[in-house]
C-alpha cells in the first residue's frame, strides 16, 4: 500500500490534532497516523496552560504571569522556545511567548466553539474548577459543562454535591468535606455545602455502573428529567445555588443536559473534574478529531510508524504498519507528536530512555543525555519531590523551529518537527501545563512545517 501527503502527523492527541488542523487549514494535504489513543483522551478535559512553578505551592493567577516566570527561569522550557526566532529581539522574548501562547489559546477556543467540547475561560486569568475529590486546581479553559460559574464569588452560594448510587468513582460525602474544609480555611464562599445521592440506572441496576454508561444514558431523550426530579428535592432541602455532579452529563448532548437541568431545578449545574479516562477527555478527543476531519485532514487510526527513509537532510518517507498491512507514505514534512510514556513516543527500560519512532537523542529536564537513565532506578522516595519525578521531564530537545536536535546541536532532519509530551524540559503534572504545552507546541510546530513546505514549493 502507498500513500502521499504534504504533511504527515504522527500521533493523535492534542499536539498532533492541533498540528493537523493547522496543516489542513493551510491547504496542505495532511495525514495523521495514530496507533492508539493518547493522554488527551484520558484527560479531565480542563486545558491547563500553566498552574505552578516546580517547587511552588501558590498557583499562578494568570497564564501570562506563569509564562513570564518560565521564560526567566527555564529558557529551554517548550514555552520558552516559543519566544525564540530570527526576528525576535532578546527584550521581546517574554512578550513574544505570551503573545504566541495567547494566540493559540484564542485559536483553540474558536475551533472548539459549537463542538461537543466547547470551552469557557480566557487567557487573562486562571480559575479553580473543583475535582471529584473536592480539591481545586488552577486551569485556563474548561468545557462549558464544567464551568462552576460564580460559586467562589457569591457570598450566599450553597453547593450541593450530587453522587450516583452504584457509581464508585465519586464519593460526594467525602468530596463535600474536603471542599468545605478548604473553603473554611480560606475564609471564602461557599459557606454551606451539602451532598446527596441520586439514582441513574442505565441498565436497570443501581450497582457497578461506569462513567461511560451514565454518559450514554443521559444522552438519551427523557433521562435528564428523571435526574432533575431527584436533584430538585435536594436543592430545595439545602437551598443550593450550585450543583456539582461527576463528569458524566453526556457525550453528544452534555451541554443541552446541563441547561435542561438548570432550568428544571433553578440552580447552576456543573461537572467536576474526574479521574482518567474521563468523559470530558473523550469529548475533547472526539471534538478535535471532528475539527481536524472537517478541515480536510485525513485520520488513519490503527497505524503505527515503524521506520523511515532519509534523503540527504530530510526524511522523505515513512513506513506505517497496521495489524496486518504495511503502508509506505511519502511526505514533505513530519510532525512528531507521539506523546511520552503513555502515548509511547518516549519509552524507558533497562537500556535507558529512547525516542521510539526515529531513535532521536533524548535528554533530561536539565538537558543532559537521557540515553543511560534507567527508570527503574529512579523510583525511590527521594525522587518524589515538589520538583516532580525526573523521568517526567525527559524527551526531545528542540531548536527554535521545534525541530528535534542531535548531539551537535543541529536539527536531526530539516523537515521533522516535534510537539507535545515527546518534548523534554517540562513536567506537566507538577506545572499543570500538559494540554497547554501540547496546544502551543502543536500550533508552533505546524506553522513552521507549513512555512517549510510552502518555501520548498
Amino acid at each position, binding site marked *: *500500500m502507498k*500513500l502521499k501527503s504534504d504533511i504527515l502527523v504522527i500521533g493523535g492527541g492534542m499536539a498532533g490534532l492541533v498540528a493537523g488542523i493547522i496543516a489542513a487549514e493551510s491547504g496542505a494535504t495532511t495525514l495523521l497516523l495514530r*496507533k*492508539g*489513543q*493518547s*493522554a488527551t*483522551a*484520558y484527560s479531565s478535559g480542563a486545558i491547563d496552560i500553566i498552574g505552578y512553578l516546580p517547587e511552588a505551592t501558590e498557583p499562578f493567577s494568570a497564564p501570562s504571569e506563569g509564562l513570564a516566570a518560565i521564560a526567566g527561569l527555564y529558557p529551554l522550557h517548550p514555552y520558552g522556545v516559543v519566544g525564540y526566532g530570527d526576528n525576535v529581539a532578546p527584550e521581546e522574548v517574554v512578550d513574544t511567548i505570551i503573545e504566541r501562547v495567547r494566540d493559540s489559546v484564542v485559536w483553540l477556543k474558536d475551533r472548539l466553539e459549537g463542538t461537543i467540547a466547547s470551552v469557557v475561560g480566557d487567557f487573562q486569568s486562571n480559575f479553580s474548577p473543583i475535582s471529584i475529590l473536592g480539591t481545586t486546581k488552577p486551569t485556563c479553559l474548561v468545557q462549558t459543562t464544567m464551568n462552576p460559574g460564580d460559586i467562589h464569588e457569591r457570598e450566599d452560594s450553597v453547593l450541593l454535591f450530587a453522587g450516583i448510587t452504584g457509581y464508585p468513582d465519586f464519593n460526594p460525602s467525602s468530596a463535600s468535606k474536603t471542599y468545605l474544609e478548604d473553603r473554611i480555611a480560606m475564609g471564602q464562599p461557599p459557606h454551606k455545602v451539602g451532598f446527596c445521592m441520586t439514582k441513574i440506572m*442505565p*441498565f436497570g*441496576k443501581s*450497582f*457497578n*455502573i*461506569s*462513567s*461511560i*454508561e451514565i454518559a*450514554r444514558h443521559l444522552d438519551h431523550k427523557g433521562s435528564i428529567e428523571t435526574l432533575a426530579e431527584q436533584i430538585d428535592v435536594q436543592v430545595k432541602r439545602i437551598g443550593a445555588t450550585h450543583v456539582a455532579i461527576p463528569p458524566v452529563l453526556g457525550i453528544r448532548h452534555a451541554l443541552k443536559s446541563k441547561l435542561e437541568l438548570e432550568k428544571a431545578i433553578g440552580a447552576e449545574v456543573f461537572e467536576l473534574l474526574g479521574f*482518567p*479516562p474521563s*468523559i470530558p477527555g*473523550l469529548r475533547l478527543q*472526539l471534538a478535535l478529531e471532528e475539527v481536524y476531519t472537517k478541515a480536510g485532514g485525513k485520520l*488513519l*487510526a*490503527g*497505524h*503505527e510508524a515503524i521506520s523511515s527513509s532519509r534523503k540527504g537532510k530530510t526524511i522523505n518517507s515513512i513506513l506505517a504498519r*497496521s*495489524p*496486518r*498491512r504495511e*503502508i509506505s507514505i511519502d511526505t514533505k514534512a513530519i510532525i512528531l507528536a507521539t*506523546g511520552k510514556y*503513555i*502515548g*509511547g513516543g518516549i519509552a524507558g527500560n533497562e537500556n535507558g530512555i529512547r525516542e521510539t519512532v526515529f531513535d532521536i537523542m533524548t535528554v533530561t529536564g536539565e538537558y543532559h543525555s537521557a540515553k543511560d537513565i534507567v527508570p527503574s532506578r529512579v523510583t525511590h522516595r527521594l525522587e518524589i519531590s515538589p520538583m516532580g519525578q525526573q523521568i517526567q521531564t525527559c524527551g526531545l530537545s528542540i531548536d527554535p523551529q521545534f525541530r528535534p536536535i542531535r548531539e551537535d546541536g543541529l536539527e536531526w532532519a530539516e523537515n521533522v518537527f516535534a510537539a507535545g509530551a515527546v518534548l523534554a524540559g517540562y513536567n506537566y503534572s507538577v506545572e499543570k501545563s500538559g494540554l497547554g504545552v501540547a496546544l502551543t507546541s502543536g500550533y508552533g510546530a505546524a506553522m513552521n512545517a507549513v512555512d517549510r513546505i510552502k518555501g520548498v514549493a
Partner: protein
Amino acid sequence: MNEDEAYEYVKSTLKKEMITPYHSDELTIVSSVSRCINCGLCINHCPVVAAIGVDRFSGPRSIAVELSRSPPEYWSTADKIYLCTGCGTCKEVCPKNVDIPEIVNLIRARIFEHRPDLVPKGFMLVNEIITEHGLAFEPWADKEEKEESRDMRLEHLGLPFIPDIVKEKADVLFYPGCQAEERAQEVREAAKVILDLFGVDFTLLNEFSCCSLPSRLMGNEIKARELAKRLKNKIKKLGVSKVVTTCAGCTSNLADLAERDDWGIPTYHLLEFLAEEIGYARLTQALKGKRLSESVHISVHDPCHLIRHTSRRIMDYAMDILALIPGVKVTASEAHDSCCGGGGMVSYHSKDVADAVVKENLIALEETGAERLVTPCPLCTAQIESNLFKSGSSIEVDDLTVFLAQKLIKE
C-alpha cells in the same frame, strides 16, 4: 528418561493440572497483556459494554487485568469471555495496543480443552459441522438445489453466471469463505463476475474448506490448526501467486495464517485487489456506459475484521471505488466504535447480546436517510440484514461485491 520422554512426561502433568502451554507464535499476544496500564480507556469504546453494560460484560480492561490472569482457572471467566465480539476496538484505542481479541481466543481455547462443559452449547453444533464437513455451515444435501438457489439469486440480481474454474498455476486463488460458499452464494458469483470482467487468471479450490477462524473463535485450537494446515496444502498444491477473498473475517485470518505459517504469498480482500492490482483507471473505464442510470443513496458499514484487524486503508479503497460509480451518493453513518454484533460467534449463544450490539448501527443507519447499506463482508451483511428486517426497516442491505458487480455488468 531422555529429553523427549521428559518433555512428554511434563506435558501429561500439565494436562492433569489443566495447563495448556502457549504456542511460540502466541507469545507476543501473551506478553502484550503486560503492557496494560489498567487505564480503562477501552471501556469507553467497547461496543458490547455500550450495548449491555459493564455489569454483564466486564469489558476489555477486565479481560486484560483480571480474566487473562486467572490461569489455570480460566474456566472461571466463562460467563464473560464468550460475550466479546472480537471487534478489536479496544486494541485500536489502547495506547499500548494490548491484543485483547487474541487474548480472548487464547482463554477460550483453554476452556474448550479443559472444561468443554462450560463452552456454550451453541458452539457445539457448529463444531460438529466443521469437524464433519470442514465448513462452518451445513452444506446443501442436494447439489441441484444449491445450484437452483444460486441461479435464482443471480437472476434476481441480474448477474450472469460464470462457470467455476479449477486449475493449477493460476495467478489468483479466489477464496469465497464459508458464508459465500454455502449461504450467500451471490457474493461468490459476483466476485467471479468481477474477476472475469477484468480478465484475471483465477481458480477456485477443488474442494472448499474453512479458513479456521470459527474454530479459533470458539476455542477449538487443535481443529483450527488442522484446518489452517489443510488450506495451506491446498493452496501450495495449486501453485497460485496470490489469494483474494470477499469475506472480512477470512481477509484478516488468511493474512494472519500466511504470516504465521509462511505461505509466502500475499492475501487480499477483493477491494484491495481491485485498488492495487486492477487500478482505478481500469475500473473507471469498465464503469463507463454501463447500467448506471438509476441513482442510489447508500451508507457503508465498516467490517471490524477489515478496519481493525487488517487496515483501515481497505475501507478507504471501498470509498474510492464507490466514488467512481456515477449516481451513487454515500452518507457516512455516525456510529463510532460500532460492530455488527455478529463477531466472536456471540450470536450463536447470546443472541440478545449480538442484537443489542447491532442496534446502535441500526439507529445511526436510519439517521443517514440512506435507502441501502453496503458492506464488504457477507457475514456483516447477513447480521445487519436480518436485524433490519426484524425491526421493519425498509433499508436494503447488499454485500459490496454484489453491489459493484451489478454496476459493472452490461445492460
